[in-house]
């Protein structure tokens, strides 16, 4: 695309098409569907973090009046060990089945064991209390250090570490060891004149979506079954559920409800296959809704990690070597996002010698799920903290040091390709020149700077645009709208035909009325589904020209299209889009454009954040007093939504840095499973998050889009972390920086 391209609609901040329904309470979420004859499903969960199930007896529950079905792991047909899609972090079908309903062994506090469906939710709850289970309680492992130690209790006796030079002969809690390398790491450190190194810790953190997991399902033995649920990828729900239950895809329809937040946490299934089993056994529609306690205990959070990082540089600031050793908790089953951590950790820097080793480690916690740029915030936290420390050691401004070493077009990445044109330098320059960076700090205040990188992804997207006889239309897309993408689709669909965006209504099709689309995640939707929308809009314009040509008895090549009007180049005639649609019944039937693609050319997005904090040294309480999020959007299709993504990512990252953590007892029981004790920041905790949208176009997208949802959560951990370090003058290595921890650091330094 050209740099100076002028747009008619792209770049405006239009009114969101889903806004009215949401603010008036009319939007239908996961828990909002009721069907005739519907019954309620509930799940019995493990009271232990690690235990063998010695016996399981559901007879008393089944005998309770009103109970219509009971489901256990044995209700799954035999499943194979094949990999399935579940956001970031791979999961096999076997593990998914054992996560959805435990088999023989429970692996975390809250692990689902038995499901009951009854005429009322209260009867289902009563029935759960009648299920008899005898446990053999085992010692849990709750941290990668414990899990990797020799002699640690094993979660899976049949798990052997993949990726070791020699095939191991003993089982381990380390599922996979992997490495990425580039250049000569030893030579890089030999050339260094200054070296910094530390180990860092990030805690288990929840995505913080407000809407719990919920679904309503109906099994039809001879017809088509249906799932209505809150999800980021209804085609993935269909695939996972169908495989678990041995169903044909064509016999299962999945409808994505409106979604009250996902952030990666709704890229897999928990309730849906269980509810469908209960529906199959009872012959009734079944509704299941998690409560908040269940969401925290039994759904996937972001990984806790321990990361050791070492960086060497010359006195002139040029970095000569970067090395890391990253250990990520996967939860109860293998598949943490450690690979993403390894691939992203050093990518903001153009350094010849890099080496990073990663470990995917199982522990007795809920299986992790994707969380916005999965794996990247934890690894880049460690690296960015050290870059700030290096800047101090070298007597350099932290932005200036980053500019000196910044990745740019042509930089070889550790994970494979050379970067095409990217906007890190532009983001750093915008940060350096911002009002924020010029402001002086007051006493007890500190400042942190951090950069972040995320790949962004493409993948399959399907769209059709159906035009109506009055010139309005419907955009049917297959990507659930978790962050406002319907507005972006509307604008991209309107741009080429050049009609008002409000004339095109965007909707999310179910798995039957639109072709396969990958889930919404990885910052792919505005990029990839946007490309499918553009293709469908081009198809609409081509058909409009053809129809006009047939009315004028000329060829389509003799018809131009400009400002929403077909122009006969062989004469004087003009026809508007609405006029062509009105006559479509006489020229071949209504017009429908189609775009089914596997998008290529995703462009990375870099972010740079600035954070100023004020630390109360008597209590350890940290207040963020000033915050600026700067990020390369490629092209901001809807600038207000882009700002919202930057602000949302920043706030989630600030929460991760300051307060959010899962707290477990030594027995492995989760002690803060609710928003009262797991504290996410609210509006009154924070200043306005200022934003700067940098636009360095992605040349592989027709409008220059990169995708903006992920990168914004990466820098806050180190921006906040280093701001606290700057304020208190004590190295910060562990998150969250809650008042007790910060107070302890201050006391320890005295």
């Amino acid at each position, binding site marked *: 695309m050209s740099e100076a391209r002028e747009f008619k609609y792209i770049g405006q901040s239009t009114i969101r098409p889903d806004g009215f329904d949401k603010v008036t309470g009319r939007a239908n979420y996961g828990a909002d569907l009721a069907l005739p004859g519907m019954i309620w499903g509930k799940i019995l969960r493990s009271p232990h973090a690690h235990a063998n199930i010695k016996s399981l007896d559901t007879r008393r529950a089944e005998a309770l009046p009103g109970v219509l079905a009971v489901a256990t792991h044995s209700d799954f047909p035999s499943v194979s060990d094949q990999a399935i*899609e579940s*956001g*970031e972090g791979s999961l096999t079908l076997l593990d998914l089945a054992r996560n959805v309903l435990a088999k023989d062994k429970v692996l975390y506090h809250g692990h689902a064991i038995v499901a009951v469906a009854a005429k009322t939710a209260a009867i289902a709850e009563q029935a759960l209390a009648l299920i008899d289970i005898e446990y053999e309680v085992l010692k849990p492992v709750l941290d990668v250090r414990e899990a990797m130690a020799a002699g640690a209790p094993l979660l899976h006796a049949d798990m052997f570490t993949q*990726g070791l030079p020699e095939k191991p002969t003993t089982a381990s809690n380390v599922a996979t060891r*992997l*490495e*990425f*390398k*580039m250049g000569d790491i030893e030579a890089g450190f030999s050339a260094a004149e200054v070296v910094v190194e530390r180990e860092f810790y990030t805690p288990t953190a929840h*995505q913080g979506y407000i809407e719990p997991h919920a679904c309503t399902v109906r099994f039809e033995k001879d017809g088509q079954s249906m799932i209505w649920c809150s999800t980021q990828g209804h085609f993935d729900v269909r695939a996972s559920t169908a495989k678990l239950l041995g169903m044909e895809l064509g016999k299962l329809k999945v409808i994505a409800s409106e979604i009250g937040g996902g*952030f*990666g*946490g709704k*890229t897999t299934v928990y309730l849906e296959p269980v509810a469908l089993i209960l529906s199959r056994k009872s012959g009734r529609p079944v509704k299941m809704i998690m409560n908040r306690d269940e969401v925290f205990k039994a759904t996937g959070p972001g990984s806790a990690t321990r990361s050791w990082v070492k960086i060497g540089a010359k006195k002139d600031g040029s970095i000569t070597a970067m090395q890391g050793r990253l250990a990520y908790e996967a939860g109860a089953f293998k598949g943490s996002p450690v*690979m*993403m951590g390894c*691939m992203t950790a050093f990518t903001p820097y153009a350094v010849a010698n890099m080496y990073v080793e990663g470990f995917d480690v199982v522990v007795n916690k809920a299986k992790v*799920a*994707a*969380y*916005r*740029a*999965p794996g990247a915030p934890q690894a880049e936290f460690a690296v960015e903290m050290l870059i700030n420390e290096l800047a101090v050691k070298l007597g350099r401004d932290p932005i200036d040091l980053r500019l000196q070493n910044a990745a740019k077009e042509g930089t070889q990445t*550790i*994970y*494979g*390709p*050379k*970067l*095409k044109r990217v906007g890190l330098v532009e983001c750093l320059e915008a940060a350096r020149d911002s009002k924020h960076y010029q402001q002086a700090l007051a006493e007890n205040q500190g400042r942190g700077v951090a950069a972040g990188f*995320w*790949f*962004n*992804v*493409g*993948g399959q997207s399907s769209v059709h645009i159906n035009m109506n006889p009055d010139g309005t239309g419907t955009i049917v897309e297959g990507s659930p709208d978790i962050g406002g993408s319907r507005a972006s689709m509307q604008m991209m669909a309107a741009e080429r035909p050049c009609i008002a965006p409000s004339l095109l209504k965007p909707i999310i099709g179910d798995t039957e009325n639109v072709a396969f689309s990958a889930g919404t*995640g*990885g*910052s*792919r939707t505005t990029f990839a589904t946007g490309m499918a929308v553009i293709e469908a809009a081009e198809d609409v314009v081509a058909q409009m020209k053809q129809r006009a040509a047939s009315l004028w008895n000329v060829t389509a090549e003799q018809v131009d299209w400009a400002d929403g009007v077909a122009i006969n180049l062989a004469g004087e005639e003009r026809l508007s889009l609405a006029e062509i649609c009105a006559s479509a019944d006489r020229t071949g039937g209504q017009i429908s454009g189609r775009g089914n693609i*596997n998008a*290529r*050319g*995703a462009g990375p997005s870099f972010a740079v954040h600035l954070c100023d904090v004020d630390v109360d040294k008597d209590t350890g309480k940290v207040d963020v007093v000033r915050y600026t999020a700067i990020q390369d959007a490629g092209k901001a299709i809807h600038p207000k939504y882009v700002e919202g993504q930057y602000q949302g990512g920043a706030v989630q990252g600030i929460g991760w840095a300051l307060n959010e953590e899962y707290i477990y007892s030594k027995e492995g029981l989760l002690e803060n499973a609710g928003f009262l004790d797991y504290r996410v920041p609210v509006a009154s905790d924070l200043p306005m998050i200022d934003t700067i949208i940098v636009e360095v176009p992605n040349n*592989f997208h027709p409008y220059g889009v990169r995708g903006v949802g*992920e990168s914004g959560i990466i820098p806050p951990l180190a921006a906040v972390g280093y701001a606290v370090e700057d304020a208190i003058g004590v190295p910060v290595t562990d998150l969250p920086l809650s008042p007790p921890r910060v107070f302890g650091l201050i006391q320890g330094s005295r």
Partner: protein
Amino acid sequence: MARVTFSSEQQRYTNEVACEVSAADYRELIDHITQRYPALSRADLLQMAIAIDGEIIHQPLLERIEPNSEIHFFHFVAGG
């Protein structure tokens, strides 16, 4: 000749960082490198994403390869 750079994991099986291959398309490229490096699994290669001259492609099966293309293998990335 197209220049193919292997991922760190692949280098364990190739003992080389990169190689040069003459291939018209991705399928042909896979044929050549699995012949040259039998330890590389064809199935694994077909699961990987590639970058051709910096353009990220998740399902490259039908991609054409230009004579001077730079090709990098890397792991498929999804996201949150």
